[in-house]
């Protein structure tokens, strides 16, 4: 039997009366790194917020490690081991880098060990800036910080909303490498949203394609090797 970390079953989400997501089914097994791709405005961020619990679905269930968490608020879900890295990073600008990292510790507070020290091993640049206000570090560093913050609590599932957005290509590459390394070394399951082709192909073991609020198709490892086919899904 495989361990299903996350399963969405028939999820509908609306903003007011406008439906954003319709009948989403997906599931992720332990240790997998799964991508969700799609163009701007197709509902990728909404999907992430629905998983962490910042948005509530109008229909369907969210199951996390065998438990129905549909009615749990975000803070309860986070404590079950979900590490969320939002689009645009959302670091706490007036807290120091170190305080930001420590904020992540309440994720998986059932585990004895947190990974604050490991975070600084992965991101030595954060170590240098420990005492600095998070609002004053560069965009790339803020992205590292957002990852480090989620990682500090030793999560079972990392939810990653557009890691490449608004970041220099060189740093995108480094961050992509870091995520791959962490998933391997820590055995953390990763669900990420992305429209950068390279990042998707580098990270994802398989990938869901969203358009118009629905899952259009699912791409396996072999599909992902065909760069042109993947690019077609992202074309306008």
């Amino acid at each position, binding site marked *: 039997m495989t361990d299903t970390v996350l399963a969405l079953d028939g999820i509908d989400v609306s903003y007011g009366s406008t439906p954003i997501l319709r009948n989403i089914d997906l599931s992720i097994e332990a240790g997998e790194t799964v991508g969700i791709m799609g163009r701007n405005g197709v509902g990728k961020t909404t999907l992430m917020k629905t998983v962490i*619990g910042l948005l509530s679905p109008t229909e369907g269930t969210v199951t996390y490690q065998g438990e129905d968490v549909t009615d749990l608020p*975000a*803070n309860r879900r986070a404590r079950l081991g979900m590490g969320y890295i939002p689009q645009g990073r959302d670091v*706490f*600008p*007036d807290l120091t880098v170190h305080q930001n990292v420590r904020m992540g510790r309440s994720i998986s507070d059932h585990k004895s060990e947190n990974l604050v020290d490991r975070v600084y091993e992965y991101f030595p640049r954060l170590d240098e800036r420990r005492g600095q206000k998070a609002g004053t570090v560069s965009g790339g560093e803020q992205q590292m910080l957002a990852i480090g913050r989620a990682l500090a*609590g030793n999560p079972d599932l990392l939810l990653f909303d557009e890691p490449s957005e608004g970041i220099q290509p060189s740093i995108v590459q480094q961050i992509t490498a870091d995520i791959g390394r962490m998933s391997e070394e820590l055995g953390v399951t990763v669900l990420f949203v992305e429209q950068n082709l390279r990042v998707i192909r580098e990270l994802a073991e398989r990938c869901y394609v969203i358009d118009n609020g629905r899952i259009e198709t699912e791409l396996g490892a072999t599909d992902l090797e065909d760069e042109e086919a993947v690019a077609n899904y992202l074309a306008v």
Partner: protein
Amino acid sequence: MTALLPQVLNLLLQFLDSFGFLILSAVGLAIIFGMMGVINLAHGEFITVGAYGTALSYHAGLPLVAAMVVGVATTTVFGLILEFTVVRRLYGRLLDSMVATWGISLIMIQGLRVVFGSSLDSIGTPLGNIQYGTFSYSTYRLLLAGASLALLGALYWMFTATEFGTRARATIQDEEMSRALGVDTNRMYLLTFGIGSALAGLTGALYAPTMTIVPGMGSTFLVEAFVTVVVGGASVLVGTTGAGVLLGAINALFSNLFGTFAGRMALLVTTILIIRILPQGITGLLNQIREEEA
């Protein structure tokens, strides 16, 4: 020289007195406003509850300090109940929160009048006075100024050095992200409102021995509280402290030279000027300076 020294002392004591009153009046309001975007127009009545709790338990035979603890505890419990029943529904709804808390304030003033009558027996000011030159000054009022400084120190420690403080600040800065990191923001707001209430209660408890204890006594704190918060801006600690220093100095100087009325005018004129020149208050000014340096 001998005539000058007492005058300087006068000014200094006046400043401390004014500073203490501004800070203690404002701090509970500032925390609730700064953290939750709720303007608590019943803030003055929270202070009244603190004073009533103190006076009633003092007259029931408790020593003054214990009576003050009761006053603070009463206000805290009262604040928590109110948060749970009313205020919780008003987060982020500035105008609604003002109307609702104003209503609460009116109910409380009349409620206290109905239950306890038009006034309570006063508590005499303890600790005697100190003499200097031809002047003398109440020792207890010095203690009040000291208490305001200690309180600012304690709040600074709480906000910067404790886990709770970090989470509270994170919640102000990005509520959604805080929730996504496992912070129970509802509980955070409840606690914050509780702390704001406790501080209002403390103000009432501390000033109870210096004032006539009547249902409407809170209004005298409300003006100072609002002026301080407006001049200070959103930052609870830096803004409030800065406003306390600035307004306290201006009030002390003008009151001392030209009388209470002039002091009050100067206070309000300064506030109007600050709103005009620095809409974000002292907090805004400091942010500006910081950005220019960076």
